[in-house]
């Protein structure tokens, strides 16, 4: 439940340790590559991911041996950097050494928990000033991470499934969860699925995925209006992260995520979401949010993008209203912004709340 079987746990230790050490040195690596026309950070990710892929069949029973073997393989793949860009190669050597040194005491659970708490804390900041008790009373919620595993590889799904392929989500929230081996029923769980095909993008994405679970499902009222919870709220979270990073940097504070983690959603996940031909709803919700954000930016209106978001996050169906009211509302906004954005803005200006706006759009 909270741990993995030995073989997969060793793999996951190698994955999290290597990725963590590389993540810590990414700003330095990026600096050494900024003027390089032959080698890029993407090349480094590619070689790192390839070393992870080479390693996935490795069955070293001891963590330290496994880490050593992974590092040897990775060094082999990046040896050519030394001739092309020695400073970059030296940064990677520091990563390799740091990885080897940390191997003995590395705990993947503590590492993932760090990112979980970073995501939760950012979600908490997002809703800190909420005027809605429906949200504020949920801000004490803290989910427990569970690593589901049933002996087949990851949670009963095919071991070779790619985290961004045809399988289940690499991170998911369950209000209730039954651990099959422990015969225990748990509440408020975030599942972290340990796929065999792991890569740097997955690791960089963990803080954003945890942020999403809180801003879209755990801290808000979720009546399965996916266009809002899994679409609009992804845009809201991505916007918030960018804004918060700038504000904290201006204030001289250290932001918990580096630029690669900050941009991973837009660089990696958003294109996948848009290309997902079997679920267009999140991308649709994201697009509507993005258009409404642009429409209202700089406008002196009561119903700002943030106010709409907070109201929808606190939505409770009133008498006669279906649980899917937010879906209807956002579909209506989507229709209107497509065909008559100026008229929509004219309707938003006098609106006092989302229900008032909806009645003006009917």
């Amino acid at each position, binding site marked *: 439940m909270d*741990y*993995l*079987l*030995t073989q*997969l*746990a*060793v793999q*996951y230790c190698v994955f999290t340790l290597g990725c963590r050490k590389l993540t810590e040195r990414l700003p330095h690596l990026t600096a050494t590559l900024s003027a390089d026309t032959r080698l890029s950070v993407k090349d480094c990710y590619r070689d790192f991911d390839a070393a992870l892929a080479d390693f996935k069949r490795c069955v070293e*029973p*001891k*963590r330290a041996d496994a880490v050593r073997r992974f590092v040897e393989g990775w060094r082999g793949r990046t040896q050519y950097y030394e001739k092309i860009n020695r400073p970059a190669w030296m940064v990677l050597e520091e990563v390799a050494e740091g990885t080897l040194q940390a191997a003995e005491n590395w705990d993947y659970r503590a590492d993932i928990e760090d990112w979980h708490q970073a995501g939760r804390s950012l979600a908490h900041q997002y809703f800190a000033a909420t005027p809605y008790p429906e949200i504020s009373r949920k801000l004490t919620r803290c989910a427990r991470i569970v690593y589901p*595993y*049933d*002996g*087949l590889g990851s*949670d*009963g*799904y095919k071991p070779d499934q790619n985290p*961004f*392929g*045809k*399988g*289940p*989500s*690499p*991170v*998911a*929230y*369950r*209000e*209730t*969860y*039954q651990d*099959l*081996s*422990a015969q225990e*029923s748990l509440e408020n769980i975030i*599942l972290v699925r340990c796929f065999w095909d792991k890569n740097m993008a997955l690791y960089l994405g963990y803080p954003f*995925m945890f942020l*999403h*679970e809180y801003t*879209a*499902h755990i801290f808000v009222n*979720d009546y*399965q209006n*996916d266009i809002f*919870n*899994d*679409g609009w709220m*992804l845009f809201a979270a991505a916007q918030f992260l960018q804004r918060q990073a700038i504000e904290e940097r201006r204030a001289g504070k250290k932001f918990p995520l580096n630029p690669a983690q900050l941009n991973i959603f837009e660089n990696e*996940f958003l294109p*996948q*979401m848009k290309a*997902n*031909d*079997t*679920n*267009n*709803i*999140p991308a649709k919700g994201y697009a509507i949010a993005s258009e409404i954000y642009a429409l209202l930016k700089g406008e002196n209106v009561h119903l700002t993008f943030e106010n709409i978001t907070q109201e929808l996050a606190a939505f409770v169906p009133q008498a006669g209203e279906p649980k899917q009211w937010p879906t209807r509302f956002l579909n209506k906004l989507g229709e209107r912004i497509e065909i008559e954005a100026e008229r929509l803005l004219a309707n938003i200006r006098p609106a006092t709340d989302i229900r008032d706006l909806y009645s003006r759009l009917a």
Partner: protein
Amino acid sequence: MADTTNQEIIELAIRPIPPDTVASIKEEILSEIEAVLKEKGQEKLLVGEDLKPEVEKTFPIDQIVILVIKAATPIAVWAVNEIVIPKLREKYGVDRKKRSDRDESGDS
């Protein structure tokens, strides 16, 4: 109050078969379960929450739907196995998560 001594949580991976999509499954599956239980005269299981289906909330890059059904009584477990799952299999690809025992801890 439901007898929870026989409670079982049944987890199903639902794969869309075109023209169905993940989006259409997420939108329709709970009402389809309600409809088939009603057709078989077992809709009361949903009212008392003896049988509670839940769609997993995900980071939305997944391409299958995980459906979790909490069955709190023996009759609810029976209804899931004999009514709900066969009905879902008529329309979707359905894989049921299997039980297995954990053999050792993950630390080495």
